[in-house]
């Protein structure tokens, strides 16, 4: 296990790219306050428009990509980003599952553009919002809406030190139980997506007695149909409520999409 600096004798060049997104995940990087200084000591932040207009030319050792692909222009641009990036890491639900904008995948996007824009004819947009991995090879996907900043630091840290990042793919339930959160579903009768959602957020919602919203997308072996069956039979959830719960930030993730479709449209 050798670190980047020992191997190459220099700091790695880091770039941050934005596609269709709300910028929240990039903000998580700026939000790293305590770690940010240490981070800038270890990496050269070469391209990060949200932080600085000054840019350094590629190629880059590591690229963080935020956002989904929703325009023909972006579908081309992501290929260029891939070309100049040795390692490409996608960050956030938009980049890993298409984001909330993937709701268009369930409808006709022109219905939206007509309502939103005065001149929809100027809008060049794709019919679907798709994750980066549908367009180029992705080295690592970091989940979350937004991502957890500690997980982001962990991923960069692991990259710097040549090790595997610790970002478990199990359910949110394990985090709840380890923290001592009381299960909101069993003890409160509240619908919760935790059992089918990947951990990483620190089980924030259940810690505040709310059901999980599924921000981190499906866990490694999700059984959404069993959970939704229980919601309907024992927690009184309607088809509409099931669909709404599944169609948020990770609406485009296959398991959530399919399960939603099984309950109507």
């Amino acid at each position, binding site marked *: 296990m050798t*670190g980047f*600096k020992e191997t190459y004798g220099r700091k790695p060049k880091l770039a941050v790219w934005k596609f269709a997104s709300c910028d929240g995940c990039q903000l998580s990087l700026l939000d790293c306050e305590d*770690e940010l200084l*240490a*981070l800038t*000591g*270890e990496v050269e932040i070469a391209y990060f428009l949200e932080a600085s207009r000054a840019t350094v030319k590629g190629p880059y050792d590591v690229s963080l990509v935020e956002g989904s692909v929703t325009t023909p222009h972006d579908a081309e641009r992501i290929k260029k980003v891939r070309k100049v990036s040795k390692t490409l890491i996608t960050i956030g639900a938009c980049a890993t599952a298409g984001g909330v904008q993937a709701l268009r995948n369930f409808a006709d996007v022109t219905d939206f553009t007509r309502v939103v824009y005065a001149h929809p004819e100027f809008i060049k947009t794709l019919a679907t919002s798709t994750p980066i991995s549908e367009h180029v090879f992705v080295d690592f996907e970091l989940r979350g809406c937004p991502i957890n900043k500690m997980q982001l*630091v*962990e991923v*960069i*840290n*692991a990259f*710097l*030190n040549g*090790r595997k990042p*610790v970002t*478990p*793919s*199990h*359910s949110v*339930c*394990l985090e709840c*139980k*380890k*923290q*001592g*959160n*009381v*299960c*909101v*579903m*069993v*003890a*409160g*009768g509240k619908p*919760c997506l*935790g*059992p*089918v959602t990947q951990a990483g957020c620190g089980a924030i919602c259940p810690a505040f*007695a709310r059901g999980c919203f599924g921000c981190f997308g499906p*866990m*490694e*072996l*999700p*059984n959404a149909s*069993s*959970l939704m*069956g*229980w919601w309907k039979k*024992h927690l009184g959830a309607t088809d509409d409520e099931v669909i709404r719960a599944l169609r948020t930030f990770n609406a485009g993730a296959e398991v959530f999409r399919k399960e939603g479709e099984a309950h109507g449209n």
Partner: protein
Amino acid sequence: MQGYRLEPSGLEQVFEKLKSQSYEIIGPKLKDDAIVYDRLTRVKDLPIGLTDEQGPGYYRLKKRNDDAYFGYVLGPQSVKHYLHPPVFSLWQAKRTEDGFAIPKERESAPRYAFIGVRACELNAILIQDKVFLDSDYQDPVYLERRKNAFILAVNCTQAAPTCFCSSLGTGPKVEAGFDLLLTELINETEHYFVLETGSEKGQVFVKDVNLPAASEAELEAAQNRVKATEEQISKKLPTEGIKDLLYASYEHPHWDEIAERCLSCGNCTMVCPTCFCTTVDDVTSLTGDTAERVRRWDSCFTSDFSYIHGGSVRPSSKSRYRQWMTHKLASWQDQFGSLGCVGCGRCISWCPVGIDITAELEVFRQERGQSESN
């Protein structure tokens, strides 16, 4: 049987004495919608007048019509949270000029006094003792906490429909492994405890609290109370031939049926007082100058847990549930000489989709019985 009579007000004295012996008191406490184990500072922290209602995938708090201190059955947590902490930093290393160094000094282990431990939980501790201590390689984290622990157990005065300790001989009566034991008694006129001692530590402890001996009638009332609890228990897990049954059911189609319901969420293993599996994470500081090995609870329901070079050995819910149940009820016997289940029913209540280990076992048993009689 010998015992003392302790008034509710006398319990405060017990708390004070534990504190004066620098114990950290861990006991039942209301948190959100359940009774969990937490730090207690005084008797008032107990879930006085509260009880729980449980079923598969179901737990609700209810008010009692009395002021019982221990009138609930079981919460989601067991003392495992404290004796076998969910996350624990095993060691740290610092980079030095010519390599690395591992600072030796360790924080001394906490001294816990556990209040309200039930018979099934005590038996779970005895099982974990075997797992962690009964070999050439003892777990030092568990060992220190266990050695330090003071256990004030409580006899169950009511059972939940999820309880099946009586099938396994692990309750509801507390038999061994405690320092002090309380049985709570409430009738129209009185509210008191019968206190028994179960160890030298316990005997020394009561010596200078100066309690009156319990009368014959009081001792009998305590015994009757536990008997009544036992009669309430309706759930059963027949253990006869259980090992052969499960070993013979390895390819049974019912595992697929369970897998349709099982979420692989791992809740059952987290709440189980005997489940002990962990994994370790190696983490570094950004600069790479310090490294740390952190142990955390893991579960046979995660893919990482059975990941070996090339992939996960148990990629499906079917294989994970089968592994879990077969370990609990069959291979645990080969490994540790007992079942890995104490019949507390937590995995039934806290499974988000109400999968019931006793009901699933019954399917295997019934079908086996049928095929044998054919």
